């Protein structure tokens, strides 16, 4: 089984690798793992006025997991919180052409996005960061 060109590209040139300070008020952190395969993914977003201005990730796992999280950070940038909620793992599967055995990697990426958004929202709960 070969990886698609897009997966290889994200794997060789991962976008937005790194991390933010997770205690910063404008940062949301999502930390998820897949107990079945042992992959670990950390995805962070930086939010200003309800818009994701930057995103970073760190992933320990296979090529598909790295590509999925790399792609996710690319997609997140510039999106509003509400738009980001709508990113589905199937979008990632389609974009990266993931084979059935690697679908769980995209699920992990979606979980990471959701966890990061939830973390950010928990931080800002009760103190809105601007009008919707």
């Amino acid at each position, binding site marked *: 089984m070969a990886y698609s060109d897009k997966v290889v590209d994200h794997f060789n040139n991962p976008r937005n690798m790194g991390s933010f300070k997770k205690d910063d008020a404008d940062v949301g952190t999502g*930390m*998820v*793992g897949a*107990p*079945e*395969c*042992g*992959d*670990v993914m*950390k995805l962070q977003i930086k939010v200003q006025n309800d818009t994701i201005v930057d995103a970073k990730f*760190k992933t*320990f796992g296979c090529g598909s997991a790295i590509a999925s999280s790399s792609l996710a950070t690319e997609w997140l940038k510039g999106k509003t919180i509400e738009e980001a909620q709508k990113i589905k793992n199937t979008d990632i599967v389609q974009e990266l052409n993931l084979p059935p055995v690697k679908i769980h990697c995209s699920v992990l990426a979606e979980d990471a996005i959701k966890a990061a958004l939830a973390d950010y929202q928990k931080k800002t709960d009760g103190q809105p960061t601007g009008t919707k």
Partner: protein
Amino acid sequence: MGYTPCPLLLMDNQQSPPHPDTRRQLQMARSMCWHCQSEVTGEYFCDRCVKVQPVSKETDYFTCLGFPRRLMLDPQKLEAKFYELSRTFHPDFYQTKSADEQTISLSNAAVLNTAYRTLRDSIQRAEYLLALETGSVKDIRTSPPADLFEEILDLQDTLEEYRASERDSEQGHRLRATLQTEQEALERRKEGMEAQLRQLFADWDKLQDAGEATSLARVERDRILKQMRDLLSNRTYVNNIVNDLAATIA
């Protein structure tokens, strides 16, 4: 054969494992021979027409190999039973039989192989039992161990640094020493987890042997399954990074 009879078409359901008493009743349930339509009372063959019977897809691997759902199985007994059944279903012995029988023996042999491969390894066996016992119940999934993840990702950075460094430089040596220490520490942790798992395996078997249906037993059952889920997951994470470390600094 000296083993408790194992009905092949057990109406066992993976989603909701029946209560021990129900299981006993189910074991009484007999299936019908695909060939002569008489009741199959034998283990893997019809008593009347002596045709091989298919192992149902719903039959769990424990039942398939004739073992109870326990986690401390004797590997020698398991192997002996596997060899015995392998001979029973070996496609070579069915070459002169009908096409149906050949198909059944082949698919039985395949199920048997998967069953043995799964149960032979204590970790895989526990994973399998968890899947059987908890089925699609997702609430057994626990919050991810954030500290462990941070550690793994930090280590990943050091690994990257090492991969990028000149192996013979002072930095390379320093990083390698750091990674080696980390690997040893993680291996010890993994061993600790495995020791805890073995204790849980024993707890599980004891609970099953007691076979009580009290609410206390239910609480204990949930405790064991949840702790086992956590430990197995964490062990997988640790195991992966240990393997990665070992491969990198080898």
